[in-house]
């Protein structure tokens, strides 16, 4: 399955598009899309103004980022993996 992600305009934080067309920081709330509807939903997101910057599709497997970009998207979801030196708040 796929989901739509972007960065939030005001602060750049990672967000996901929900079934209602809203945006959430929680991947679990993201709308799951099959291949046929994904492009149309993405086009809708791209046409919207105000909340999201640069929406794009990601693979989701078992409620986690999947596909070849799984690591990048996991880091986007959960934060840097650089340990305890400067943990993200």
């Amino acid at each position, binding site marked *: 399955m796929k989901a739509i992600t972007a*960065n939030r*305009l*005001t*602060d*750049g*934080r*990672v967000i996901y598009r929900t079934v209602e067309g809203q945006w959430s920081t929680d991947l679990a709330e993201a709308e799951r899309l099959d291949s046929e509807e994904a492009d149309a939903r993405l086009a809708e997101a791209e046409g919207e*103004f*105000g909340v999201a*910057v*640069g929406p794009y599709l990601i693979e989701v497997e078992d409620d986690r980022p999947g*596909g*070849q*970009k*799984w*690591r*990048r998207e996991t*880091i*986007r979801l959960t*934060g*840097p*993996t*650089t*340990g305890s*030196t*400067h943990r*993200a*708040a």
Partner: protein
Amino acid sequence: MYKYDTYDHSLVRERIDEFRDQVERRLDGRLTEDQFKPLRLMNGVYLQLHAYMLRVAIPYGTLNGPQVRTLGHIARTYDKGYGHFTTRTNIQYNWPKLVDIPDILEDLAKVEMHAIQTSGNCIRNVTADPFAGAAADEIEDGRPWAEIIRQWSTFHPEFTFLPRKFKIAVNGAGEDRAGIRVHDIGLQIVRNAAGETGFEVWVGGGQGRTPRLGRKIRDFLAPEDLLSYLTAILRVYNQHGRRDNLYKARIKILVEALGAGEFGRQTEEEWAHIREGELKLPAAEIARIRAFFDAPPIAEATAIPATGRADFAQWLRRNRRDHKVAGLSSVVISLKPVGGAPGDITADQLDAVAGIAERYGFDEVRATPDQNLVLPHVRNADLEAVFDALAAAGLATANAGLATDIVACPGLDYCSLANARSIPIAQAISSLIEAEGLAGDVGDVTIKIDGCINACGHHHVAHIGVLGVDKRGEEFYQITLGGAFGTDAAIGNIVGKGLAGDDVPAAIVRLLRTYLEIRDENERFIDTLRRVGDEAFKESIYVAA
């Protein structure tokens, strides 16, 4: 250091007002992202994986105490309590909100700082020797020239939309600590037979996906001709540099295509038209700028203190540098605690550095291309107090130039361009080297790590380089050997197939153990590598992989 005049203040002030308006128009929808992106980039604002990133310019790496304290204030107030010093001697904040950035720029302006020309295809921040004005091997302080270049290049209308970004380095010492051969233009201050100082001019160096060492196109350029000659180089590049292919747009590609001889000939031809014009630097103006860069203060010639303290003695051995004034030393503040993120510094640590610089360091701090800081002028009599104050702030790691003093780009933990992580690899390597007790025995060696081929972490010019690549969703790391950053600049060779990230630290440790086994007496790692070649080391990298 240089102090803003009315023109500098108004220029920065106007830019903040302009950017505040642009942010407001972006937020209320009058600007689209496509329209806004080039505007925010001109103000150092990137959009990375998790958040916006603000890159703040530190002109030729020079800071004073109030500036460092302001950097701490920004980290604490608008970010997550830390900042990240880069190999370009700038500082980056990884978590600012777009809505806060105009206020951050206001705070920076109060201490004569900004984020202008930290992105885009313009002339970027000039790199200088972090020990400029202090180094015992200095021919002449390069900072006045870096400042003259800064003033000339800031918002230069002819060079605002070059084919690609453009980086200039100025080095005034015998040892190249600015990396002149890996910059688009490298300026080495030299003395001619008559005893006059001027510049050797190198062009076409750079790292990234096509690493090249710069080529010398002029043996001696008189100082008053600096800006006209730079203009001539940039005009040749602006005219002929490729704009059709992002990957072939840097000046290094043009210099290679034309040949350094032909590039130099065209530069001289253009220069002949402009050298006697308005760009000739008046002696009075050179003297005015030089006056901002005070000579090191005269000190009583106190000796380096003898000590029975092992920790202080080790710090002196690794982090102290000779100064050109008797009684003074320079010291490196390592931002490489074992297991830490290279270049990261907390808000409290920034406050501590500011206080130490003001109390003991004649109010000067430098950022280095190795992602460390330097106090260029410290009285020998104050060295122990500086060490104790740094230790109290967690900044007294005695590893400058050792294998744990690792350079790393932000990598996939932050950067939207990266393919693989860098910082965790650096952390794992330094932790394993420390656990094995190897750093002291190995001595001087450079290890630099990149998460993509853009090479912000300078892996090409490391004795041991590590380049992260992505293969179908998995991280692998190529090892390069034999690169060097300074006077003996060299591009490292890839030694073989990539390793899994978990295998890299042990491979590096085996490599270092091989060096210890085969080195001749007093031979540094790079000397042994150059003597025996890659093969002996290659076996140690792959033996158990």
